[in-house]
């Protein structure tokens, strides 16, 4: 349902001498997502997971390549058009507003401010506190609260493709299990193609397919078991302070 063909994304960077060169952040990604499946995308910090998600949503313009959604080439479509086509994205760092409440965002996402519909949405995403609805989505919200709102607005779109960028950051231990269940239920009941970017094992285990990103490329696609040795290697590389340059395991 979503096909990524030869995706590249580069940005100009200024080097130490004041000159500019191009840095490639997404370096040739090819993958086809199937309808109604649950994907987990993982990989080291800075490997390009968020950048890839933003290319799919149309937030970053791709440098070259093509994106097909339900057979249509959406490469040239705006964020709004992709949203209307059925793609929804939960930001890793959600925006905070002044004077806009959770209710407002939910109503925009759902396309209606009908009270019964909004309450049904709250139940669907497992938010029990009704007073939460009138919370301003501003800088006063805690990190976990804003992530719950972000997730709820994504589900409120009833998207064909939902991408959640680290939905579990800041979420308490008691909520992660129910969150995994919720996303699985959305997949099962609404056939939502679900992509979760996460470092959390709970999501990796829930996924049908695990994608491992490293340095702007997909280093692995398949069952979690197959990814485990690679994950271990990457973690060694990540935590080694100033690792020697000829440590080959870091460059596979």
């Amino acid at each position, binding site marked *: 349902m979503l096909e990524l063909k030869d995706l590249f994304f580069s940005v100009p960077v200024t080097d130490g001498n004041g000159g500019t060169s191009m840095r490639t952040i997404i370096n040739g990604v090819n993958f086809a997502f199937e309808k109604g499946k649950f994907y987990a995308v993982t990989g080291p910090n800075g490997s390009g997971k968020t950048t890839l998600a933003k290319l799919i949503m149309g937030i970053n313009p791709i440098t070259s390549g093509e994106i097909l959604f339900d057979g249509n080439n959406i490469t040239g479509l705006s964020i*709004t058009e992709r949203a*209307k086509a059925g793609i929804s994205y939960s930001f890793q760092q959600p925006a905070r507003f002044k004077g806009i409440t959770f209710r407002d*965002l939910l109503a925009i996402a759902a396309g209606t401010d009908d009270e019964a519909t909004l309450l049904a949405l709250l139940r669907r995403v497992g938010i029990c506190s009704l007073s939460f609805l009138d919370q301003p989505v501003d800088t006063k919200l805690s990190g976990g609260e804003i992530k719950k709102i972000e997730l709820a607005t994504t589900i409120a779109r009833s998207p064909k493709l939902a991408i959640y960028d680290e939905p579990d950051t800041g979420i308490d231990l008691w909520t992660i299990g129910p969150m995994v269940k919720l996303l699985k239920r959305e997949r099962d009941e609404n056939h939502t193609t679900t992509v979760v970017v996460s470092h959390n094992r709970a999501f990796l285990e829930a996924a049908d397919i695990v994608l491992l990103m490293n340095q702007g490329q997909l280093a692995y696609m398949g069952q979690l078991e197959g990814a485990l040795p690679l994950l271990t290697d990457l973690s060694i590389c990540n935590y080694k302070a100033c690792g020697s340059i000829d440590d080959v395991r870091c460059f596979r």
Partner: protein
Amino acid sequence: MLDALDKKLLRTVADLEGIPKGAYNIRKNGKLLARDVSANINIETNADGTGIIVTIKPGTVNESVHIPVILSQAGLYDVVYNNFIIGEGSDVTIIAGCGIHCGGLEPEGHAGIHEFQVGRKAKVTYVEKHFATGPGRGRRTLNPTTKVFLAEGAQAEMELTQIGGVDEANRVNEAILGPNSVLLITERVMTEGEQTAVSRNEIVLSGENSRANMVSRSVMKGDSKQNFYATMDAQAKCFGHIECDAIIIDNGTNETIPALKAKHPDAELTHEASIGKIASDQLTKLMSLGLTYDEAVNRIIQGFLK
């Protein structure tokens, strides 16, 4: 007595559908159009006939006064001096507002000079909306001045809004706070085209444990320009905060100068100020929920000025 245009202006500036209930004073084109008083609220014309005196009996609670002004006469610049004497322990709402309809080339304007004496432990909520409309190209000016004197333990909450269509506005807000008094001012101004708006605020915290919070939200569209000046002058142990945010759309410009003066060692004064375009992450978020770019801009401004 009220024609269709009057009703439209009243609805916009005072949320009124016709003549209000309770005490009111409606001024049209510089003259009294209608007035009523209640058992606890008296309204009378001042000695030199330049405005009104609204007197609220001590202990009056849950009552409101409407004092809208409407202008639709070309070439008129209406100046009015209004006094509000709010009795001890009362809790009332005053709804003011000025609506201008300009049909021709000649300028029209209004200057409302409002002075509030808020008695001990009294609470007043003051809501003021300014709005101008009409097909005419005449310059529309609104120059309001508000002076507030808070006695011990008094509270004033002021909501000052300029919705649109005003070519030039020069606002002055002054307040002197007695012991344990509380002042909350929220000002919201939107300008567009070639409009200009200036707001000057002088807040003197003279009583011990007085608290003041001034919030300003400005949106500049087109080539419009807004300046905001606010001074908190602390003369006792007190708390004061200024929060001013300005959003620039198109080529608008803004100058914001908050000033804090602590003349007492136990004064606590803070300010936050920001000027800038709409944050791109806010726009991106709303577009990812299906809004177009323009719809997202409007929604963010609507919330910002809410």
